[in-house]
């Protein structure tokens, strides 16, 4: 299946294959299909061995160390390298300058500004945009038509921004969906910042709830411009990964209670 947001990225992948590039950076928002594109690269390049590598320094070094003994062609997908320590990026430098014949690398990241320039200059950068509404509909229909019909008229549908969101929603229990759809009402019952920030980051059964998800639900129902700005700032802060999520949640709670 080909989605509109990936069209230009797929063309770029073709170019990489033609020029036999060993190193590619795919950057785009979370859930835009970066890993799908990396696998597409492997498929088109007839690479059967695909290894997913975490952004930990030791894992990166281990892959590079092993790459010298690869007998067959291997693709290492370094997922979300921007969320790892900068040392992980620098561990890759030498490899990018002199890649071994059988090894290929695809780095995925949601914020390319967190990737050192030295890595960017040694790789082919492919940008992938967020999926369009029609892409999401098409994906959801292909995944489960009944569920698509069930959710397409509900508040939860308005919150979906990526393919991953569709997967998450379709696999979510009814209790959790109910919780998220009523999160604005739940927040009104919270007596202090502590309980409010807990409500933003935990479901009713106290299991963890991604803050960006609860914020997106709030944004769908909120009309107050100040609170909308608070939500947008919070999403930016989550994306920048510079501050603990619990502190961002507490900031949102403080702003909702005492700001403006």
């Amino acid at each position, binding site marked *: 299946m080909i989605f509109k947001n990936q069209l230009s990225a797929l063309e770029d992948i073709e170019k990489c294959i033609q020029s036999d590039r060993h190193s590619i950076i795919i950057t785009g928002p979370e859930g835009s299909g970066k890993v799908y594109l990396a696998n597409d690269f492997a498929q088109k390049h007839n690479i059967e061995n695909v290894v997913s590598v975490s952004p930990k320094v030791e894992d990166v070094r281990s892959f590079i160390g092993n790459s010298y003994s690869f007998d067959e062609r291997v693709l290492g997908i370094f997922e979300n390298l921007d969320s790892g320590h900068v040392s992980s990026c620098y561990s890759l430098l030498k490899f990018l300058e002199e890649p071994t014949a059988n090894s290929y690398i695809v780095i995925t990241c949601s914020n390319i500004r967190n990737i050192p320039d030295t890595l960017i200059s040694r790789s082919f950068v492919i940008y992938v945009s967020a999926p369009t509404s029609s892409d999401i509909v098409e994906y959801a229909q292909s995944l489960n038509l009944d569920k698509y019909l069930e959710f397409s008229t509900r508040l939860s549908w308005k919150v979906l921004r990526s393919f991953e969101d569709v997967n998450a929603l379709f696999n979510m229990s009814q209790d959790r969906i109910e919780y998220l759809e009523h999160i604005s009402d739940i927040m009104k019952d919270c*007596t*202090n*910042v*502590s309980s409010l*920030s807990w409500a933003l980051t935990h479901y009713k059964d106290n299991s963890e709830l991604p803050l960006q998800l609860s914020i997106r639900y709030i944004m769908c129902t909120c009309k107050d411009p100040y609170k909308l700005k608070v939500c947008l700032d919070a999403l930016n*802060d989550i994306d*920048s990964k*510079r*501050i*603990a999520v619990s*502190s961002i949640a*507490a*900031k949102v709670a*403080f702003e909702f*209670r*005492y*700001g403006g």
Partner: protein
Amino acid sequence: MLTIQQVGSDILNNTPKSFYVFCGPEYGVKREYLNILQKFYGSKIEADSVQSVLSMMNTKRLIPLKPALYVVRYDESFVSSLSASTSSMISSTNISGTIVCIYEKPSQFQKLDKYLSDYVVSIDSIDKKYIFAHLYKKYSQKIPENVLRCISTHSTNYNHSMLVCDELCYMDPDSLLSITEDSILRLVNISNITGDTQIRLGVASRNFSYLIRAIDSYENDLDGVLYTFLYTCIDLEKLKRSRSDSILTPYINRWDMKDIYNFYMNVYDTIKKIRSLSCDPYNSVVYLCSLLLLKPIPSLEDTTK
């Protein structure tokens, strides 16, 4: 060398001599004596050097100087200029009031005692039981006896114990009755290594000097300090909403909601700045601590103008 009993007797009986040199680490006693002398003369003049005060006394004038207390603190040049004739020069000067010179270093004491033995008094550490007696006399109306006893036992000196008592006087009397020995020990800075609890107490009590000391001996990095600031704000807000038993409860009256909110926002903004700009984390933390001294704490908009 004069004894502390002689000097105390002179000062308490309102018959002070014209010149004293207070040496030693116990500033609390020095401060007490200075307060009594100030009350006796009605005025206190802080001077930069002993020489300038003596010159003033030697200047001929039509209207004589009104007796006053002159205080000269840590005048190094006076110590270096000491000679065999200094003592006679002072005794021949007609001093109107009392000049008190204050020094702390033991090395200075040796030289001062050599040349000015008639004026020098060594004010060293006081016995714990006398500290308690003094504290009881001064603070028993406001602070319970068991708390005073704990402070006198654990504080490093009389001045330190007075500072702790002054701090406790601001507390709500009911909270003071229930204050734990552990909290007092933290206030007198007994623990060698600081943990999150000390940082939280420092923020909640809005005690700048205590907080800076705690940060300087904090077991984790400055990032940990900043996040502890944030969590303390959340706890304070919770306590403000519904009173409960917590180590922060005694200090809750020092905060209003706006201050808690503004402090949280300033700390949050600082964490973001430290991560994105090359600003010095320690200076940023000290800056945040200084905000605690302000009432109200400025909003983020005010501090970033």
